[in-house]
Structures are given as C-alpha cells and as structure tokens.
C-alpha cells in the first residue's frame, strides 16, 4: 500500500510538475503569477481530444496539438494583455490573466458544450503487478514523458542562448535590456514556453484521467501553484521537486489523515513554507 501510494503520487506529481514549471518560467521573468495556467491546461486537453477524435488516434499527435495550442495561448496572452501592461501596476496583469481564465473556460463551454468528454486511454495494459500494487504502461509513459520534457527545458534554459536570455531577464530585466538582450522577445518566449508545458500537461493529464471538460483545469491550476511555491517559484528544478513532493505528500496525507483534508495539505504546506522558508525548497535567496 505504501508503494502504491508512492506510485500514485509520482504519477500525479508528473502533471503537477509540468504545471508548476509553467508557473515558474513566467514568474521567473516577469514576477507575475499567470492565473490562466489552469485554463491553458484545459485548452491543451481539448486540443488533444479533438486530434484523437477527428484526426488520428495517436497520442504523440495529440501531445503535439496540446503543445501548439498551449504555445499559441501563452503567446496570445502575452501579446494582448501583458505586453501593453508592462510598467503599469502588476495587479492589472494579474486581473488580465484571471480574465483570460474566465474567457477560455466559458468559450470552451460554448464551443464544446458543458458535457464531460471521454478521452481514450493509451497504453492501458498492465505493465507489472506486485502483490496488490499494479502499474499500467501509461503511468510509466506519463512519468517518462514528463521527465523528458523537464530535462529538455532544463537544457533549453541552461545551455542555449534563449535560455541565457531568460535567465538574465529573470535576474533584472532593465539591465538585461541594457546588455542588448531583446527583453520583449524573451518575455514572449517565456510565456509561450509556459503555455506549451501547460498544454502538454493537459493532454497527458486528460489521457490519464480519461476525461476532458471545461472546468478540469481549475483545481489542477491552483494546486500546481502551491507546488510551484513549495519548490521555489523562481527555480525550475524547484518547481519540479515541488510538484512531485506535493503530490506524494497529498497521497500519503489521504492515507494517514482523510480524503476530506486532502486539499488542505497543499495549502498548509504553501502557507507554512511562506512563513518559514519563503524562498521555497530550491529558490534562490536573492531572487524573490
């Protein structure tokens, strides 16, 4: 049972980790919490669902669709709302992301209907069983894909020029601008990247849970946000760690306490960390 809860936690944590990164990338460059992340996750899931339903029953194609949708949404949010609001009150951008969140959720309801849709399973055969513990291939696939994406992002941010720009802008965007970095493009890139990870997470999550509906991203977004804070909002490895740890702690919390207090666990951690270790597990001391 202990092992089973751990496996549950790791699977769920993969989705949290991807979303937490989405928060962290954007928070890193702009110090802005993108409250439309949950809605982007949902839109990504719908894109994947449409692909599977009408194009081809192929999970990789679905993930690509989720990625592109998420990328476009991130890009669009930045172009419409964030860029014109840079240098103005940060609350304005924050409200704008809330506006986007409402807009996307309701437009999805209008277009696709409020009924929950079934997302087909992939790789749903049993991989192995150990006593009462059982794991299906998809869980391995999910964790594997998440880790691959996380590593790719890590490479992108720490080994490429664009990544260097993102890191520089996140340290100080005025100085970065003076150093000849195209700040506008970097911020736009960060938003698109954040959107894309949320979009892929949407596809992966919807296949795991087999459902797609307009409200699927709400709680997921909020919980992943606590995961991101947990790990340190500005640090990508921190966000990953936060995502996995939150999910594992949540699962054990259910085991030890009760399902009713499950959602509280995440938030107690959130508040606790803010009070006692505000920079999170791996956050840098100076960057918040």
């Amino acid at each position, binding site marked *: 049972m202990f092992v089973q809860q751990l496996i549950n936690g790791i699977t769920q944590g993969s989705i949290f980790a991807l979303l937490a990164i989405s928060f962290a990338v954007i928070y890193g460059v702009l110090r802005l919490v993108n409250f439309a992340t949950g809605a982007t996750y949902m839109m990504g899931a719908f894109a994947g669902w449409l692909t599977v339903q009408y194009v081809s029953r192929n999970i990789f194609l679905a993930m690509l669709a989720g990625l592109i949708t998420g990328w476009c949404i991130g890009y669009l949010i930045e172009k419409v709302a964030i860029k014109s609001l840079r240098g103005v009150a940060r609350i304005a951008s924050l409200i704008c992301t809330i506006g986007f969140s409402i807009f996307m959720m309701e437009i999805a309801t209008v277009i696709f209907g409020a009924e929950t849709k079934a997302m087909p399973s992939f790789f749903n055969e049993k991989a192995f069983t150990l006593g009462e513990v059982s794991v299906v291939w998809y869980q391995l696939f999910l964790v594997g894909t998440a880790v691959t994406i996380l590593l790719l992002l890590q490479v992108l941010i720490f080994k490429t020029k664009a990544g260097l720009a993102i890191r520089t802008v996140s340290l100080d965007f005025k100085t970065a601008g003076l150093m000849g970095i195209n700040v506008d493009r970097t911020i736009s890139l960060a938003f698109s990247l954040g959107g894309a990870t949320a979009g892929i997470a949407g596809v992966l999550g919807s296949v795991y849970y087999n459902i797609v509906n307009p409200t699927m991203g709400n709680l997921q977004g*909020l919980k992943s946000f606590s995961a991101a804070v947990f790990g340190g909002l500005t640090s990508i490895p921190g966000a990953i760690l936060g995502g996995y740890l939150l999910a594992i702690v949540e699962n054990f919390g259910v085991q030890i306490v009760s399902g009713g207090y499950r959602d509280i666990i995440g938030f107690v951690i959130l508040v606790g960390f803010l009070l006692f270790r505000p920079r999170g597990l791996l956050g840098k001391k100076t960057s918040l």
Partner: protein
Amino acid sequence: MKKLNIAAVALGSVLLISFPYIVPNPYLVRVAIMCGIYMILASSLNIVIGFTGMFSLGHGAFYGIGAYTSALLALNLQWPFWVTFPLGGAMAALFGVLIGVATLRLRQIFLAFTTLGFGEITRIVILNWDSLTRGPMGLPGIPIPTFFGVRFSQAGYYYFILLFTAVVVLFIYRLYRSRIGRAFIAIREDEVAASHMGIHLFGFKTLAFTLACSIAGLVGAFYAHFARFISADQFGGNESFAILTMVALGGTGSILGPLLGAAVLIIFPEVFRFLAQFRMVIYGAILIFVIVVKPGGIVGVRGVFEKPVQAIRAKHSHQKGGR
C-alpha cells in the same frame, strides 16, 4: 459651485433614500443591496491594495469568517444581530491580525500567496468541521435582524446597507486624508523612504490589513442575516477574485473606483442575462478589454472625480528586487 455641490449631494441622497419607494421592485432593491455589500468589500480591500500597496488574494475568507461567526452565534446562542454583527467583524479582525503579524514582515508578494492559501484553508475547514459549521450542508434559517422589535423588511436591509456603505466610504475618505492614511500611501510609494521618515512599516501594514479584514467581516455578518442561508462555497477563492477584480476594474487607490467597480460588476451580469451562455464569455472579454485599455481601472489613473492616484508601480517592486 459650492451651492451646486450641496444641491447635487442633496439630490443624490434623496434619490438613494427614496429608492425603495420610487422603484418598488424587490428584485432591483436586492440588486442594490448586493451592490452595497460588494461596494463595502471592494472599498475595504482597496485599503490594502490601493492605499498601502499590498496584495491580498483571500478577502473572501474574512468575509466568510464574519458571516459564519455571526450566523453561528445567532443560531446556537440566539444572540441578537446587533451583538453578533460586531463580533463577526471582530473575529475577522482577529484572523487578520494573525495573518498580518505572520506575513507582513516578508516581502509584499508573500501576503498574496499566504492569503490565497488561507482562503482555501478556511473554506476546507468550514467544510470539514461538521460539528460546528454543519459542513457542506450549510447553515439555513439564520434569523432576520430586528430593529426595536420590528423585523427587517427588504427596505430595512436596504437602509442598513446604505447607511453602512455611507459610513465606510466616509471613514475611508477621512482615513485617506488623515495621518494614518498618509502613512499608508507613503508605504505604497516607497517603503524604504517611508521607514526613514519614521513610519513604522510593520505596524501600519498590519493596521491596514486588519482594518480591511474587520470591515469584510462586518459585511459578512450582514450578508449572513440578509441571505439567511450560508455555505462554504459562497466564500471561496472565486469570491476573493471577484472582489479583487472589482477593485482593479474600478480603479485602485481611489475612493470612487471600488464603488464603481462593484456597481459595474454586479449590475452588468444582471443587465446582460439575456445573453444566456455567452454572458460569462463576454464578461471575461470585457474584463480583459477594460484592463488593457485603462490599466489603472476606470477611474484609477486620470480619474474623473479625483486626483489621479498612481497604482502600485511595477518599477516599485522591481527596483527592490533584491533584499
């Protein structure tokens, strides 16, 4: 000019006071009462966001604490509304102080995250604490307040909230012009400078936050006795975001802004009911549009009625990035 003002005020007051009689439509009176409730909530949050420059994402929780406190005292101990009403505010203030003391020493953004978490924790505790709050079943049958033995009619509720709104607005107006208010604004404009001027940062921040929470608690107490049924989902994260949106849309830092924001966001969805399922789509779109076009809110920057008050500047938080 002065005479004109007095005339305008007199006319406005007469209109507001005679409202339930000019328009004897309970639906419109109810909408007006809801406007009043949210005007107070938004104005109180504005003390935190607009004046002092701090973020709070959990205002709905304090509103809920006030509502639950007052409702539980009235239901379990049969205490009259006039006693439970201030106690609702006091309980919210108590939690405000606790949260404030714990987080306000940290950088601003932490208040936002902590309050967000606190809001969710409050909701979940209410849902799980069955023996006291009846959990997800909610609290029905909250008594109607009486005024010298006469039970509140709808007009009674209307006048109560009208008076309450007027008192809060006047209070905030006086506060804004007072030494304390100026200290709040100084903190918003530049914390470092403010502290060098001898302003006790932590003390004033806690004061602003607690003040806002206690007002929210009072409205919550009123709401409980007005709606006569409360449940945890009425005070969740959505509520906090709705109040925040009202402040931002109307204009942070101005007195009129939150009033206007609340009125617009309460009346708008009512007027556009005929749009059916498109109503919320358009709501989201307009929200984005207004903020993009007027980032400081409708009357925030270059206000119509007030001296422009700069909203919390992005530069403000960036320059002090490293501490």
